[in-house]
Every structure is written in C-alpha cells, then in structure tokens.
C-alpha cells in the first residue's frame, strides 16, 4: 500500500521533472545558466535586458513545445483510459478506434477547402463521427464484444484515411506539404497560440472525465450491470465519448496523428497503480504527459533532424502491442 503511494507521487511529479530536463536539451546549444536566465526573463523576473536569441529559443520555442507535448500526452492517455473503460476493452485507444483518423480528416478539410470553419470544430465533428460509426458497427445485440470493436475501428481508420488521401490528391501542392508533415505527428510547429488552444480545448474535454472517473469503474462492468447499479448508461456513455473525443480532436488539430500513446500509457499505469479509475485516470494523465515530453525530446535530439514524434511512438508502440497480446492471451482477446 505504502509503496503504491510513493509510486503514485513519483508518477504525479514526473511530467514536471521531464519538462524541466527537456528545456535544457536541444539542437541550439545553451549552457544551463543561459536557459535559467532566459526563463527568468521570459516570465518577467528579469527585466531591462535586450532581446536575445537564447531567450527566443528557450521561451518561445522549447517551453511552448514542452507544454504542448504535455497537453497532448494528457489528452491521448486520458482518452485511452476512458475508451478502454467504457468499452471494457483493454486493447482500444483513440487511434485504433479511428478517432484520430476522423479528426485528421476534419482538419485536412478545414485546411484544404474550408478555411472559414475552425480546424478544431471539424476535427471534433469527424472524430465523433468515426467513433460513433465504429461503435454502431460493432454493436450487434446488447453488449459489444472485443474483436468486432477493434475491427470496426480499423475499418473506420482505413475509410477516413482514404478520404484524407483524396483531399491530399486534390489540394494545391503548398497546402499538401503542410498537411503531409502535420499528419506524421509533430510538435515542431508549437507556439504559444497553439498552447493556448490546446489548454482550453483539452481542459474542457478532461474536466468531465476527471469528475466522472469513478463511474468508469461501474461502466466497465457492462451495460446491464451498470444499469442495475443505478447508472444512466446511455447518457453517461455519450458524455464520456464526447469528452474523450474532444480531447483527441484538439490534440490532433495541434500536433497531427500521434498513435499508440493512448494504448501504452494506460496499460503501464494500470500495471503499476492498479485498475481503479479513480487513481488510474489522473495518473495516466501525468504519465501521458511525461511519455510525450520524453518522446518529443528524443524526436528533437536523437538525430540532426526534427523527426516527427508520431514515428517515435509507433516504433515503441507496435512491439508493445505485440507484448500485450502475448502476455494477455485469452485474457485480452477472449469474449
């Protein structure tokens, strides 16, 4: 019990530690003192100094990038926990259920053809469309079983990715380049404006999830049982799906498609802290932020290039999925 508490505290503070370290690492070499001074200038502790490139690097490039990565990590992991809980399926996440692809299609539509409609709005609409279609397809009678849900998620992903390809084919080459780069999933475009959008949108999505997190336990017992325990299942499910999708859509709109985070982080945290959503959800948020900051720091520093972070998470995620399948066996695939 006590060990669990220490580990929980460790997970809870890990994003701050990871973020702090990430600020000191980057292509533009800076001494630690320069980083600290730039930070102090940025938040107004030191004044009267001339604008310096160091300050721009730390305060206008690295800090927003770390914050954006953290916010996106929170959104993806929390959505993963929520979807796994309410669909009682440990193998789903926003990426597998096609929400990411749906949201990406919404974004591309907005960038390519409907510049007047906010990117985030179309991302949300198509994200919701994707998950509702996947859910309806998988739900035959009463309960939805595991494999059909994953299969219909894959179908939705394939469909929305195909629609996305049509858009790529039709837009002008200038826009195409930005769509393609953004689809790979990256925080390279991070700035304070994106951080602001992400903070508001993801915050709005995460609030109901945090408040209703204990109910995820009850929802995960299955529809009939949750009803018997006094839960208004259809109402709560809509709230959970809408809130999770809002978080994911905003994340996709600011950073493209970053897969696997929503699958891996909840599993790791569940292994460490147990399945009770009351602690699982907030700890997964913290763990997701840490994971995303570390992955992005690797993306910026491993090579001379700024590799899209979606590639890093996929390289880690695919083997992790195989590991889950082997370890879980019938526990994961049964029913």
């Amino acid at each position, binding site marked *: 019990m006590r060990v669990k508490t220490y580990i929980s505290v460790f997970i809870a503070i890990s994003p701050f530690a990871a973020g702090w370290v990430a600020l000191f690492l980057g292509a533009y070499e800076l001494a630690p003192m320069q980083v600290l001074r730039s930070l102090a200038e940025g938040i107004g502790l030191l004044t009267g100094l001339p604008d310096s490139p160091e300050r721009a690097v730390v305060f206008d490039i690295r800090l927003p990038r770390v914050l954006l990565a953290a916010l996106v990590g929170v959104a993806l992991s929390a959505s993963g926990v929520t979807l796994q*809980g309410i669909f*009682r*399926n*440990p193998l789903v996440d926003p990426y597998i259920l096609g929400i990411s692809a749906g949201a990406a299609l919404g974004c591309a539509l907005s960038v390519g053809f409907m510049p007047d409609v906010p990117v985030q709005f179309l991302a949300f609409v198509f994200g919701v469309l994707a998950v509702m279609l996947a859910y309806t397809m998988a739900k035959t009678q009463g309960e939805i079983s595991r494999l059909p849900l994953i299969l219909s998620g894959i179908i939705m992903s394939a469909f929305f990715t195909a629609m996305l390809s049509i858009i790529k084919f039709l837009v002008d080459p200038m826009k195409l380049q930005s769509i393609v780069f953004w689809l790979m999933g990256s925080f390279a475009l991070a700035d304070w404006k994106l951080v602001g959008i992400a903070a508001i949108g993801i915050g709005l999505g995460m609030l*109901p999830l945090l*408040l*209703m*997190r*204990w*109910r995820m*336990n*009850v929802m*995960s*017992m*299955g529809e*009939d*049982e*949750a*009803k*018997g*325990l*006094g*839960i*208004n*299942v259809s109402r*709560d499910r809509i709230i959970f799906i809408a809130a999770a999708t809002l978080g994911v859509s905003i994340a996709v709109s600011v950073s493209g498609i970053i897969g696997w985070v929503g699958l891996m982080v909840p599993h790791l945290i*569940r292994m460490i802290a*147990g*399945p*009770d959503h*009351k602690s699982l959800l907030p700890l997964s948020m913290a763990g997701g932020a840490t994971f995303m900051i570390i992955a992005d720091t690797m993306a910026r520093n491993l090579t001379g290039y700024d590799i899209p972070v979606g590639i890093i998470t996929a390289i880690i995620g695919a083997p992790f999925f195989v590991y889950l399948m082997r370890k879980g066996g019938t526990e994961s695939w049964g029913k």
Partner: protein
Amino acid sequence: MLRIENLTFRHAHHEADILHSVTFDAGPGKITTILGPNGSGKTTLFRCIAGLWKMKEGAVLFEGRTLRGLSPAERARLLAIVPQEHEPPFPYSVFDIVLMGRATHVGIFSVPSRRDYAAAYDAIGIAGISHLAERPYTRISGGERQLVLIARALAQDSPILILDEPTSHLDFRNQIVILEKVRSIVAERGLTALMTLHDPNLALLFSDHAILIKNGSVIADGNPQEVISAQNLLEMYGISVDVLRNNGMGFICPKIDRATGRYTG
C-alpha cells in the same frame, strides 16, 4: 411487499407472449424462490422486474407504488441485483467491486464519500469476506465471487434483493454456504429477496415461499414444502419423483432404478 401484477411480456416483432399475466407477492424478510425449467421465462421475468426490458402489460409495485418510470438511479435504490459470478475486463480489487454498489448514492460528478466507503466495509463484513478485501476479484474462487456480488448488493442498501441463480457455478459446499448466508442476511435485514434456482432440493432447503413457472405462467404459488410436490414437478419438468421427508423438510428424489440406473417414471 413486492407485488408483480399481471406481468405480460413479448419481444419486439415476435408473435407470442413469453410471460402471461404473471402475478405474485414477495414479502419482506423472506426468500421467494422462482422455479421453472429452462426457457420458462424466469430470466425474462427478472429482466422485466429489473427494468432492463419493457413489459407489455402489468406492473411491478413496491409498497403499493409502481416502479414504472423510475430513473436507473431511483430504481437501483429500491432494487439490488446479484448477477451470476462473472469476470470483469480489469482486475479490480474485491473492495473496488463492492464499492460499485454505492453508485446510485454517488453523484454523477463525484467520487464515493467516506460514508460510501463505510457502507462498503460494512457489507464486506456482513458477507464475511473481509479477508479478501484487497485481493483482485479476478483471482478468487467462484464461491468467493458470488459472496462479493452479494456484498455489493448489500452496499447498495436497497430493500429488494434479486438473485439470478446464485448457485449455478458453485460446488456443493459453496451452494450451501451461499444460500445459508443469503437467508440469514435477508431475515436479519428484512429484505425482500427474489431468487431463481434450478435445484428443487435447494429451493426446499432455503426458501420461505416458492413460485413455480411453466411456459411463462405461474402454475403454483405458496409454501415450498407444499407446492414443490411430486405432482407439480411432474407437470413442470415432465419428470416423476418421490418426495422423501426428513425433519419435516421434503427431499426430491427422481425415480431412478438402483440396479439399472434407468429412469422409471
């Protein structure tokens, strides 16, 4: 008093009724057991009473008030369901599972309060499984799981208890242990318990009131020692039995020839 009145049910797009004007009363502090062959409508009846399926006609009344139109939360405060033991997708601890019984008392945007934790601990104590509280529900035996689900229903703090074949997956000892426990809890707390069983002997041993159902109709209703008779069992199951007597309790023995092992009814 729980009253089931003229309950009639038919599946959507189906021609025939599955339940025909089922009517009976179940009193407080008693176990009312529903006996009937597979497909006789026991499960359908429970699903209608629990509000999971919409009945075509009739009513479920508790203390004279209808349960129709209640929200899931209101209904759960009147009626707790003990399902058959099962496996949830995540390895929740026994305590986490029992705490779920408090869902109807926890607001939509909140987590269980200290009172809810206390109620869950009490229920675990009454069910006699305090030693299991921290164990994962997925790693305990079927009998223990059934006790956990009973504890969860007690934590729910509802006057009506519905038990769906609580002994179906259990070994001989656990069948006795569970039913004895249920009976003492029901009597102590004055709960109205409605239970289905497959074994007429268990029904004779552990019920205060028996309802016999065949093809969706009640064919007998009364004291188990009287209504679980050779004649009624023949009508219900098409099997001839002898009823032996021991300490004033009946015991059902199918007509099997000792030498050949053949049914001789």
